[in-house]
């Protein structure tokens, strides 16, 4: 076979995906679209369970709503890896997943509630107060609408004033976890949502309004994000017109940032070293282990270009792993293994937390003197640090991930 033909055959062999018009860009859009769509689908499911809870408050409907909340976290936590290279998403996400929160902004709290020092909103208790007096101003909060909730989010410039999003809903479904580093999550009674004389802790009608409005807001925020990834949306356009190398840059940057600073740092090392349950991610529900695991899985999805949707379907396409393997096989393999270890070590958190006989949740793992728990969390942190180093090595080998990339700003 003449040389040029041989070359041609090779190109054909390796470029089936090219023929279908697939590249890093299309995979990126496919994965992001699917994971945000799944987040929306599961948020709508959560919404219907919350409607059922409000229609007929009972231990059963409350428990079903909690399950739906846990399920809604599955795709959302996998979506977070898209956040860091995209300021458009980063600016949006605070309304959905901000934490830790000063929950006294929203509802009643225990007497030994600790909030951010100097936070004016920390004890406003919107649910208990139809009129809110603050610094000589009077805020009309008679109707708890999505707009009212939005106006209190990051109130007075404090990030601890989280009025909306998954963790606000989590607080309303579970209540404060008053067990510290002991076993147990929040124990809000279903009667907190009952309208008759059985209403516990007062202001049940307003609490119901809040829960309904904050869930509506979550769904509409996710609808907006889904639209942005569809043809004609700004993020769809951004990733359609970017060079493939810029997409690779974006992937490297986002995985690196979530891996090291956010997941290993803010979400694990801070609570572990300070032994601080205040810094636990899903602190009301004790769902933190799952959130960490799905964060790690989301990073792996993006690297391998594959995502398993909540209905079981697989979507994907040419990946950074494919792109890199041809250029830097060794560094790519190293990173692939490192990412497997990260998933494995966060899975170990899940295994310990979901243990049938002696479960150890994340807030127990970080207790002072819990060596076994500390080792579990440290292993996950170390794996994420190693993953970041492997990623940096790969980026360096490929000449990617530099500060000058358009993806990082």
């Amino acid at each position, binding site marked *: 076979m003449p040389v040029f033909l041989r070359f041609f055959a090779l190109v054909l062999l390796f470029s089936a995906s090219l023929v279908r018009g697939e590249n890093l860009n299309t995979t990126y859009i496919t994965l992001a679209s699917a994971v945000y769509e799944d987040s929306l689908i599961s948020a709508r499911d959560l919404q219907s369970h919350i409607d059922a809870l409000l229609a007929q408050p009972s231990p059963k409907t409350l428990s079903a709503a909690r399950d739906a909340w846990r399920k809604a976290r599955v795709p959302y936590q996998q979506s977070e890896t898209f956040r860091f290279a995209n300021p458009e998403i980063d600016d949006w996400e605070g309304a959905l997943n901000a934490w830790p929160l000063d929950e006294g902004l929203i509802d009643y709290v225990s007497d030994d509630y600790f909030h951010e*020092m100097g936070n004016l909103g920390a004890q406003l208790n919107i649910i208990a107060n139809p009129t809110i007096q603050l610094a000589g101003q009077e805020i009309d909060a008679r109707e708890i609408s999505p707009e009212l909730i939005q106006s209190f989010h990051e109130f007075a410039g404090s990030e601890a004033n989280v009025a909306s999003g998954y963790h606000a809903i989590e607080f309303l479904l579970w209540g404060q976890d008053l067990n510290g580093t002991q076993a147990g999550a929040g124990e809000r009674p279903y009667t907190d949502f009952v309208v008759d004389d059985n209403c516990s802790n007062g202001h049940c009608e307003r609490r119901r309004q809040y829960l309904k409005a904050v869930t509506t807001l979550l769904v509409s925020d996710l609808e907006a994000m889904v639209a942005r990834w569809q043809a004609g949306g700004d993020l769809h356009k951004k990733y359609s017109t970017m060079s493939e190398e810029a997409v690779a840059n974006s992937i490297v940057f986002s995985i690196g*940032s979530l891996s090291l600073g956010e997941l290993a740092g803010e979400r694990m090392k801070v609570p572990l070293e300070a032994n601080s349950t205040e810094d636990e991610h899903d602190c009301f529900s004790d769902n933190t282990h799952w959130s960490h695991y799905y964060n790690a899985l989301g990073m792996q999805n993006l690297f391998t270009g594959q995502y398993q949707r909540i209905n079981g379907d697989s979507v994907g396409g040419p990946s950074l792993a494919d792109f890199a393997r041809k250029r830097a096989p060794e560094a790519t393999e190293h990173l692939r293994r490192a990412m497997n270890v990260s998933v494995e070590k966060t899975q170990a958190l899940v295994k310990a937390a979901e243990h049938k006989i002696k479960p150890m949740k994340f807030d127990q793992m970080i207790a002072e003197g819990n060596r076994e728990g500390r080792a579990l969390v440290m292993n996950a942190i170390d794996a994420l640090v190693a993953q970041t180093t492997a990623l940096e090595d790969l980026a360096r080998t490929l000449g990617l991930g530099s*500060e000058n990339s358009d993806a990082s700003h």
Partner: protein
Amino acid sequence: MTGKNAMTHTFSRVSLSLAFCFLAACGKAPEQQLLDATGSEAILPLHEKFLAESLSLSQNTSAFCAQNSRSAEDLAALRDRWVAAMNGWEGIQSIQFGPVTDDNQAWKVQFWPDRKNLIARKTEQFVIGDEAITLPALQDSSVVIQGLSAMEYLLYDKPAAKLIGPDGQGYCDHLNAAASNLQQVADFLHEGWHPSGKNYLGTWQSPGPDNLDYPDENAAIGALIETIVYGLERIKRDKLQRPLGLEGGQANTFLLEWWRSQQSREAILINLHSLQLLYSAGNGAGLNELLQARGATELSDTVTTQFDRAISAIASLEGSLEQNHAKAANAESLETLYATLTDLLAAFKREIPSTLGITLGFNANDGD
């Protein structure tokens, strides 16, 4: 600056460089000269200072707590020793590579920002707890109560009155254990860097294919640039923007670095001096000289000027940041400082790495 001073300045700079050149064998490549000079003129002396001040604080705390009765004057004198040790720490706070990364040393020294006042809560629990208040017990506890931050709470917050009263022994025991722990950390860091100890300096200064941390000179110089970026970011975002609400929102002075002792302004001043020292190696063969050697004299001089401007802006702030950040008289200095930090960050994140052909890691790329 008058013409005469400028001349003197230039002269001393040239002569110092020559003297250094003479001592350190000028035959070396400028990259190697940078690593040598930055180590001997900045990293080692800064760690020596922190060690000396921590040692003095530890000795003074031990003597303070051994007294049968303690006076307000004794407390004031001990606070001065704490400030000196804290200043020593601020000198090395930005240095984010080397022994400090080993087992989280920095957090043992300082826990900040402490949004929910964990320091007070955990200190009180520790002091009233059943366990004896000893150094090993402290080291097994949360990092938030182990170092300068907990000592600041004990010396400047509610426990301060107890320390000089009849029933302050528990607090003093904690203070004493924290001072000893601080000294151990300072010792660990110093020993970790020093050529007579574990000699991480040698690792940093000898890049090469067999060096796992620094396979080439760019990796070693990159670590230095990243550390300067980290230090500048922390000042800009964590020490100014967030606590003072400089980009929207309200000021929350509880987020300032040393709000209890009102030393936050001083800390920034020390940070900037030490960052400038890391940049210039005390007018030896620092990054500034390497940029010149690569033909980027203008960039090199611009950065020097920006450091000077930032330092004079923070130095000219009247009073403490805690009390006076919102005063009209300070608005211009704060604005200048903030804008200059933005310029410095742009230089260290983009212009300097691209001039030197260095790619920074994710830490340095984060949070623009």
